[in-house]
């Protein structure tokens, strides 16, 4: 059995770790509230955007547009949204696993646009090539950041360097449920969009476009992408804090449980040493008589 001193030392160390995890949990709870409100207030923009684009594609039939054409051969790009900090349970690893486990995204022909250091490092270890690193963005996502990233991606898409663009992020359902998601941004999936629009038929009046349908699409698709990336960033931040909160909560619980066990062990050891001392004293007294 471990000595009283060892147990005492161990207990102190677990106690201070427990204090840290508890504090981290509180911090991420506050951050979660903030990021969640932000993520929710950006939803209407995105939903409206999606509706507009879906109904546009549905009404205009099969438009031949550079962003809609299935890409020729070429590398694929994936935007990996993770966090800059660890201690969030499986949050970062899930994204890395999701990307590495997707057959279309082989390490050899995939370019990674990393947002978040942890995911970047994880993908590097798996042999992925990191084209650009926007890790600073995740600390405080701005719409402009999403727009800049979109511009860079569309530029590469236009030059034919990449043929498909994916977005990997953790979507935020509620405080405890966050699921890693992989979304194809380009070429735009017309069937999926049209399918959703059919469910809720809106005013079927013929839409007019100014200057022309192609020009409007040219303009809207980048905005659609920016809004999707922006929404993903905000949701990812909320998920990160949610994941950290859950992880830190269970860490705190574990620490408390261990402390309880150590307490019992310590008391046993103390009792044992007292009994031993007593036995020694009595044996000593007996020897004198």
């Amino acid at each position, binding site marked *: 059995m471990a000595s009283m001193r060892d147990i005492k030392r161990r207990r102190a160390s677990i106690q201070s770790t427990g204090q840290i995890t508890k504090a981290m949990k509180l911090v991420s709870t506050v951050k979660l509230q903030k990021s969640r409100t932000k993520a929710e207030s950006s939803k209407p923009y995105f939903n409206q955007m999606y509706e507009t684009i879906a109904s546009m594609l549905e009404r205009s039939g099969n438009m031949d547009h550079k962003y809609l054409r299935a890409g020729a051969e070429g590398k694929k790009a994936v935007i990996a949204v993770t966090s800059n900090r660890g201690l969030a349970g499986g949050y970062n690893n899930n994204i890395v696993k999701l990307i590495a486990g997707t057959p279309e995204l082989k390490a050899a022909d995939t370019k990674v646009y990393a947002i978040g250091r942890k995911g970047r490092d994880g993908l590097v270890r798996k042999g992925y090539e990191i084209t650009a690193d926007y890790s600073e963005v995740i600390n405080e996502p701005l719409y402009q950041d999403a727009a800049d990233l979109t511009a860079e991606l569309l530029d590469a898409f236009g030059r034919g360097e990449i043929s498909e663009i994916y977005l990997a992020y953790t979507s935020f359902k509620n405080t405890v449920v966050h699921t890693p998601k992989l979304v194809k941004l380009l070429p735009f999936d017309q069937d999926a969009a049209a399918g959703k629009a059919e469910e809720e038929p809106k005013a079927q*009046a013929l839409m007019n476009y100014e200057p022309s349908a192609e020009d409007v699409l040219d303009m809207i698709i980048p905005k659609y992408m920016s809004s999707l990336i922006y929404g993903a960033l905000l949701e990812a931040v909320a998920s990160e804090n949610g994941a950290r909160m859950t992880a830190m909560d269970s860490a705190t619980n574990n620490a408390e449980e261990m402390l309880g066990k150590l307490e019992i062990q310590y008391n046993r050891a103390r009792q044992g040493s007292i009994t031993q001392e007593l036995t020694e004293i009595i044996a000593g007294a007996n020897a004198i008589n």
Partner: protein
Amino acid sequence: MAEVMKLNVITPEKSFYEGDVTMVELTTTEGDIGVYPNHIPLTAVVSPGVLTIHEEGEKKQASLISGFITILPDSVTIMAEVAEWPDEIDFKRAEEARVRAERRLTSGEAGLDTLRAEMSLKRAMVRLGLKH
């Protein structure tokens, strides 16, 4: 009572304006337009300009920098990337931007991104125009 339609102005951060209006004026890439209820369905691209919202008996103005507009007979939706009410505009910054853009345009230096400078001048002018 004048006829009204629903107007929604949404920015990525929040819902900017929501309400019943009698008329909306804004600038598109094709020029200034005014939209009354029962307009034909139209989708157009916004270019920097002043957004004027006519409610019944009241008029509100805001800057509208970029985005697009979807018009249906009974509703108008503006997806604005950037939009501000006059009290949200940093006029000092807009003034500086105007001076800088003008300087760049008159300097005529090589490799000048004229389009970009003109756009930033336009943005600054729209914002400053709302000062009074």
